[in-house]
């Protein structure tokens, strides 16, 4: 039976009931440019206040590091056997946060999830800066920071190389790959927006944007290449992000220390990374939405989706956490079991139980619509979830080292000194500084992709993609062999 044109049209319309869009479909495109470019303009005084506060915090960290550099790691109150302390714990925490930005962006791009578009840019920038912050801790924890380059594989006249068997070298390779790749991913995705900035900027900024946008004109050849490149990069970055934190977890899983030597660590670390990363994306979402008045782009439906995703990631993390305890308990390995009991009942017990509460119980609040719809509550939730995840990393590092295989070396009473706390605080200042500078130099919301988001909807409404692409209806296309979908 052959349908008439109108009948088909109605059928197609019925089949393709449009979902509600996450942002208002009627925003003028020029307004998008204007709104987002406004965030690059001269900041309010409060920006400088926060920036200087962050810088001061960073200086606190720097002075602690200088003191430690001069005196030795003893001032950090690290000891044998507690040799890592907060440095490695905070390192894992920062690097874990960096996973959600790129992973989320790449995954949702591959899955064509529209709601990624207004939030992916700042998430990727967050990834880059958290990685840079994490890299600081790799340096800070070294005993001889001035010889860190021994870890890098560079040719030299003595034919010495790093030890490629060491998980730390895998770490360095993986983090180096991840940092440069996610930086490239961020940059490539930003080129069309840099062109917009270039078209609107004056003075020295014009030069910067002209240089960085590489003469982008939005021609169809450029767009076609861009599309392929961006998708390919996303396909590479997703497995990369998973591999990076798995490799970080092998620092522990590949060692013999009971409490580290756990097979489920790689997925556990990845889940924890995504979880804390989503929480920090929510925190920054709320901060940017408020500071730059991005209410029209960072809308509540998107926040709600993020909250749901956070809950899902939290449940994955909870499951893997519990399964770690369960396998340790039923595996009945003497050393591992003791380490677990020590964590739950020893001197670190308050932190350990708090970590479990914040990581596993608190996210259940996200099942309530009223929680997800309230911005102050979400801000509170995201910060406390991240605090819980920081505790988790600390609870992996310190109690485990304190209670190893060899009973004579058990050591309960190590507490991080002010040097460690100062450097941890300094890392926040460093991250804040970088992120604030980024938000003032580069657009933190993707302009062209928000337009794409609107365009898809508008195009759908006006011409109806499905009808236009049906060769039975559109004879032009039948000759061409139809449009590739």
């Amino acid at each position, binding site marked *: 039976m052959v349908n008439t044109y109108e009948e088909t049209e109605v059928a197609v319309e019925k089949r393709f009931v449009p979902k509600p869009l996450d942002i208002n479909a009627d925003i003028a495109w020029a307004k998008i440019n204007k709104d987002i470019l406004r965030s690059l303009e001269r900041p309010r005084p409060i920006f400088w206040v926060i920036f200087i506060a962050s810088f001061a915090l960073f200086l606190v960290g720097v002075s602690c590091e200088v003191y430690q550099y001069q005196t030795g790691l003893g001032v950090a109150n690290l*000891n044998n056997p507690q040799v890592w302390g907060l440095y490695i714990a905070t390192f894992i925490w920062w690097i874990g946060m960096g996973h959600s930005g790129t992973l989320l962006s790449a995954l949702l791009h591959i899955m064509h999830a529209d709601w990624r578009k207004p939030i992916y840019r700042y998430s990727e920038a967050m990834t880059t800066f958290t990685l840079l912050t994490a890299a600081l801790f790799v340096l800070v924890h070294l005993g001889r920071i001035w010889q860190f380059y021994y870890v890098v594989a560079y040719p030299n006249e003595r034919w010495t190389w790093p030890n490629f068997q060491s998980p730390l070298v895998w770490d360095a390779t993986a983090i180096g790959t991840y940092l440069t790749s996610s930086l490239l991913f961020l940059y490539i995705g930003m080129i069309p927006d840099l062109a917009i900035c270039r078209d609107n900027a004056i003075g020295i900024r014009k030069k910067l944007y002209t240089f960085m946008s590489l003469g982008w004109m939005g021609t169809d050849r450029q767009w076609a290449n861009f599309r392929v490149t961006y998708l390919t990069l996303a396909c590479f970055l997703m497995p990369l992000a998973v591999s990076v934190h798995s490799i970080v977890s092998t620092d522990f899983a590949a060692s013999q220390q009971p409490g580290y030597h756990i097979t489920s660590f790689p997925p556990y670390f990845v889940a924890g990374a995504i979880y804390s990363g989503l929480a920090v994306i929510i925190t920054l979402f709320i901060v940017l939405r408020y500071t730059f008045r991005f209410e029209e782009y960072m809308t509540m439906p998107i926040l709600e989706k993020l909250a749901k995703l956070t809950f899902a990631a939290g449940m994955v993390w909870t499951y893997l956490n519990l399964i770690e305890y369960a396998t340790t308990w039923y595996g009945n390995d003497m050393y591992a079991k003791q380490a677990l009991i020590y964590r739950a009942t020893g001197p670190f017990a308050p932190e350990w139980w708090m970590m479990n509460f914040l990581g596993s119980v608190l996210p259940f609040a996200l099942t309530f619509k009223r929680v997800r719809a309230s911005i102050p509550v979400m801000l509170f939730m995201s910060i406390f979830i991240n605090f819980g995840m920081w505790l988790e990393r600390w609870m992996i590092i310190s109690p485990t080292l304190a209670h190893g295989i060899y009973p004579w070396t058990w050591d309960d009473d190590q507490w991080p000194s002010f040097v460690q706390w100062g450097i941890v605080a300094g890392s926040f200042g460093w991250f804040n500084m970088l992120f604030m500078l980024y938000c003032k130099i580069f657009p933190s919301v993707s302009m062209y992709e928000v337009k794409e988001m609107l365009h898809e909807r508008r195009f759908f409404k006006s011409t109806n993609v499905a009808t236009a692409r049906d060769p039975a209806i559109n004879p032009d296309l039948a000759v061409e062999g139809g449009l590739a979908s």
Partner: protein
Amino acid sequence: MSITNLLNNWSFYRQKRPYQGQYDLNRQYSEYKWAMALDLDICTGCNACTTACYAENNLPVVGKKRFNQGHVMHWIRIERYWDENMGEFPEQGASFLPMMCQQCEEAPCETVCPVGATSHTNDGLNSQNYHRCVGSRYCSVNCPYKVRYFNFWNYPSTAWPAPLPDQLNPDVTVRTKGIMEKCTFCVQRLNEAKSRARTEYRLVRDGEVVPACVQACPTSAITFGNIVDPKSKVAMMWKNQQVDLYKDMQEKDNSVRGYRILEDLRPFPSVMYLERVRDMEA
């Protein structure tokens, strides 16, 4: 070139160690393998070995405060354990265990060092290259015995005030802050003995060289030697106690006392302890 090198020597590069017969006098791999036997039934816990080690290896004395902080540098330590139910005379329940680097054949610390500062020498020692060490402390994390000591402070500038540097052993370097160190089996003595023997076209004789701790032990609880030489005292002790360097979790007769600590982790330590293991649960 490298690829040719890889192809030609592939089986050598893929060789796992220790393999049966890796150390033998025909010098397939090495004619030396230093090993120790430590009789806990003879040890009185007098700490002479520790003192000798401090003198020989230029170990800094850290003082009470830093000891409590956990920054002590004793390469060989006397561990005291107390039996709980000794009633009227609790001090009778003390038992001692001198613990130093076990020079494992499959040392967990070696694989994890990011810069390759610690590796295995031909004569079966677990070497530590101070110049290469960057101080990531991963080796210490992965050492099941926790016998690696990190220089948390800059000891050369503080531990030996003015006249004291004169008493330092010139054969051994002092270590700066930020690097890892550990028992070397007094490698400076071993190397000297080896080169002296080489100039005389012979192998090092049994008893010709001993580490400082062995030398100082008043009860001769520690025996040291080249386990490759079947006539050496240490080799005979290992054989009598049915402890085989290349094996783990060995089945032994009830009459022997020899065991290696944490053998079930398969690090293949080079130090055998002699003591009837009584508490089978621990």
